[in-house]
């Protein structure tokens, strides 16, 4: 499944148009500790988090995540979005909680 489909099915806001919506989503992850995600991340993951520190982009880039999904409509600063555009990392957003988002992602068939 591509991130484009995620955006449609989960009604997500696209925050980095430049990064495109063609990345292949191979799995999902929910975690707000950057160190943890650094250690456990794998390529193609859709990372659901409320953490919007600029290092989120570095971590997503490190593992070539398909996208970062910011839950609970958390604000994402401009410098973070600029960095995401630079690194080609898509950042999506939803008003829903991480719990609900991960449940919906799972129902869509992302079971890794």
């Amino acid at each position, binding site marked *: 499944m591509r991130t484009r489909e995620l955006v449609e099915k989960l009604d997500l806001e696209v925050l980095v148009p430049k990064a495109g919506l063609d990345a292949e989503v191979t799995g999902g992850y929910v975690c707000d*500790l*950057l*160190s*943890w995600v*650094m*250690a456990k991340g794998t390529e193609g993951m859709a990372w659901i988090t409320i*953490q919007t*520190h600029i*290092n989120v982009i*570095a971590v997503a*880039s*490190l593992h070539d995540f398909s996208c970062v999904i910011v839950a609970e409509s958390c604000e994402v600063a401009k410098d973070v979005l600029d960095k995401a555009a630079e*690194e080609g990392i898509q950042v999506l957003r939803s008003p829903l909680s991480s719990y609900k988002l991960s449940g919906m992602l799972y129902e869509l068939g992302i079971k890794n």
Partner: protein
Amino acid sequence: MSWVLKTDMNASVDLHIHSCLSPCASDEMTPWNIVGMAMLKGLDAVAVCDHNSALNLPAAIKAGKEYGVCVVPGIEVTSREDVHLLCYFEALEQALELGEVLNTKQPNIKNKPSLFGEQIIVNEDDEPVGNFERLLLTACDLSLEDIYTITNEIGGIMVPAHVNKGANSLMIVLGMMPQDLDIPTVEIFGIRPHSMLGRLCLTSSDAHQLPDILEKGYQLEVDEISTKGIIAALRRGEKAGTAAKGQ
């Protein structure tokens, strides 16, 4: 007749500075540059605290002897809970010992300099000798309590870093100080939080570039200007006779 010479004095300090070994610090933050800048700024003592490593400390100590600045060996350890903890020691060997422990506790993820920055190792004379390959920004597989115990066993003191601000702050991550640990000193950012009453609240620069190193003016009351005197002051915390001026 015997008499005791009391040597209460105020030391101008900055006890949290990153060298070029920390990927987030600029390449100009070589140990000799840091200590040289400290000398120019009129500081009595600095601590170099890189993320999870002590490899650039020998150079910092040598620079300290050359420039007449007291250099406290330190490491900024990342706990499993993603909390940053400053571990300070009197002797270089103790910091190196903690560094060796941490070497076995981080996941073996290779650094990507284009994302995180270079991790430059220097020899005692400040010459770059290589790049540290493993990413130093990850958490160690040690809890806050583990780090407290290990640091104490080696003979040092653990001071939670920037407890009230930042992604890796103890108060932001855990919401409260650990109840069973003796923590007389914490590092704060900005105005002393009310929750830290009763503890010595250190203000440091957390400098990642040379101009950010503190100017002279922030002081710690010590018995002597030495690593021994500074560690003793950190252990005393807010008790009679120790207060950090300039807050």
